[in-house]
């Protein structure tokens, strides 16, 4: 046993898969300790806030400020406000008034603004330009002038009687130390469509999905093992009956069955546990078939005959003379069942047939929400890409572990 475990941990594939899986487990277990609270709490009101650090605007107005005269502050400010299409339009105008296009660099805000100031003339009428376009340039010029002016902003508080009183005046060179702002929030993966912290949700969802995979894998492996052992060892009529049902379940695609059962259970009854059970109950067939064939090859071995001659009963022979010989195989089958259970939950949830949405997040549900609110169309990659990555990593690590085990236990596969 000790030797076997040592051998397993000599397999680089198994170790790689094991390390990834343990890292994911640590993330699932440890992240909620550092960020406690309900993972489904809606902290944001809008949808899909971008990843990043958020500081309270309200607090920063009243926080003590320092004046810093930084030379590129104005152009940075302009650069962050000036949109891509405005820059392109400016370049278009400059070309129209005769500036050579190779002199224009839309990425260099300062140079672009210098050219603009030099060449823009409100009264000029470049050939082929409509009045509407000229008006657009007029507006653009005005807003550029006002942004560059560095005028002060007044913050006004509205009193009870409706009278306004100025509480702060903010100059363009006023700075606040981030640490002096009491309310900050770093959202590494932003928020999702309901304004929930995606990272916190992801830790919780991955945990639920792994549990679903484990329940489904255990159920499938236990049923498959029991039927496979009985069918293979007893043979004859029992074998025929068990294989009849196994073949029926094999012929009907289990995913169709899964969809039908999930649908008929109804949204209210469908907790994560029920979904896991349904997945387990529809995916035992191939474990049965492969365990059966392994048992058939063992059934007539001399050590089994000797055990029978020693008067041992069916249960004891199955448990001590057959099961230990196929244990490595069963462990590998279990790992694959866990992996396919996680994938099956994701597929079901993507179709909206997964666990009900109000209690716990799962990886499949997160994908479902991201899809329903078109995260993939509006560029909110943080709502679905980490989820896909998580599913891929879990299933990759499990399959890698399985391949590693396979190479240890089937020496013919070793390279």
């Amino acid at each position: 046993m000790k030797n076997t475990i040592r051998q397993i941990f000599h397999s680089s594939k198994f170790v790689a898969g094991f390390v990834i899986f343990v890292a994911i487990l640590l993330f699932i277990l440890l992240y909620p300790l550092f960020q406690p609270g309900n993972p489904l709490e809606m902290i944001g009101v809008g949808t899909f806030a971008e990843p990043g650090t958020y500081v309270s605007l309200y607090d920063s107005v009243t926080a003590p400020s320092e004046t810093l005269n930084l030379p590129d502050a104005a152009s940075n400010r302009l650069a962050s406000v000036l949109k891509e299409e405005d820059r392109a339009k400016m370049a278009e105008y400059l070309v129209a008034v005769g500036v050579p296009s190779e002199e224009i660099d839309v990425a260099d805000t300062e140079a672009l603004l210098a050219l603009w100031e030099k060449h823009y003339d409100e009264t000029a009428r470049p050939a082929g330009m409509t009045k509407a376009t000229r008006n657009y340039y007029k507006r653009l010029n005005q807003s550029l002038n006002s942004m560059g002016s560095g005028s002060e902003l007044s913050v006004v508080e509205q009193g009870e009687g409706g009278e306004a009183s100025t509480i702060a005046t903010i100059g363009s060179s006023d700075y606040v130390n981030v640490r002096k702002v009491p309310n900050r929030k770093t959202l590494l993966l932003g928020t999702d469509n309901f304004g929930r912290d995606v990272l916190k949700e992801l830790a919780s969802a991955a945990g639920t999905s792994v549990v679903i995979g484990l329940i489904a894998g255990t159920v499938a492996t236990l049923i498959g093992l029991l039927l496979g052992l009985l069918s293979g060892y007893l043979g004859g009529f029992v074998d025929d009956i068990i294989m009849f049902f196994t073949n029926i379940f094999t012929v009907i695609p289990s995913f169709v069955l899964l969809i039908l059962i999930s649908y008929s259970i109804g949204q209210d009854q469908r907790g994560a546990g029920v979904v896991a059970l349904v997945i387990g109950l529809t995916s035992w067939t191939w474990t049965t078939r492969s365990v059966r064939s392994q048992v058939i090859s063992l059934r007539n071995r001399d050590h089994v005959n000797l055990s029978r001659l020693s008067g041992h009963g069916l249960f004891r022979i199955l448990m001590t003379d057959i099961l230990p010989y196929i244990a490595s195989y069963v462990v590998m089958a279990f790992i694959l069942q866990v992996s396919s259970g996680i994938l099956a939950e994701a597929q079901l949830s993507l179709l909206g047939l997964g666990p009900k949405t109000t209690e716990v997040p799962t990886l499949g549900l997160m994908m479902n929400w991201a899809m329903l609110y078109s995260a993939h169309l509006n560029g909110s990659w943080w709502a679905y890409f980490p989820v896909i990555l998580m599913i891929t990593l879990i299933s990759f690590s499990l399959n890698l572990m399985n391949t590693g085990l396979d190479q240890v236990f089937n020496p013919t596969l070793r390279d």
Partner: protein
Amino acid sequence: MKMDNAKDQNTVTLDRRRDISQNPLCLSGKGVTRVFGTGRRQMTAVDHVDFEFRKGELVSIVGESGSGKTTLSRMLLGLLSTSDGEIWFEGKPRDISTRAKKRQYWKNIQAIFQDPFSSFNVFHKIDDVLLDCIRMTGGRDLPKEKKTELMTQACSFVNLKFEELTNKYPFELSGGQMQRLMIARIFLLKPRILLADEPTSMIDACSRATILDMLLNLRDEIGMTVIFITHDIGLAYYISDTVYIMEHGKFVEHGSADEVILSPKAPYTKRLISDVPKIHEAWDLSTVEG
């Protein structure tokens, strides 16, 4: 027909043969048949064989691979059901319809298998194998010292040292040692019939004589019937009282060892005998079919 080679290879003498024709019947069968598969894939492994094994007799069943020897042995052991025919055990029809009756039957008949390397459960220690035998013969509640004494006795009968074997696994032994451990197991169980299915074919020639010697000693010691299954007609001649020749699931010839081998009647027996390689002659391959 020269059988010198059998004598050359083994130093055990031939005068073990005794007259057993007056002993009571131990195991007998009439029309025993086993058919595998159905329809077009139907195959008759054992085809209506009759036999009578007497108490204390050493019977050899000889035949080439695939002749149905092992299937017959499994039926005799009760590990495989018969398709047709009846088997009598000590004068009464054998009844192994329930588990309790099977257990009772297996107290009387035990086996040694061909491949010592696959005969033991690799997850069980040697002690477990021997303790199992003590338990089976009703020694479950014996004190620990008594059990150890029994196991030591059994091991020393086959020239093994129990102190060296205890807490070891079977796969740590050599093939010859494992097969001797099998005999120690039989020594503890003391069955009335021992079915030895090619017990020496996977063992080198030196250990072979030792194993055979131990088997024969054991037979003399507890007076059991030995059914020896082999493909080696020379070996069969040298140890058996009676020889059954099996071809394609049928017994083509049987009788005392001298009768069958010194004056064979069936062509198959003649062929088997001529196929035995002889040390001082060129090997005659002319009888090989195809």
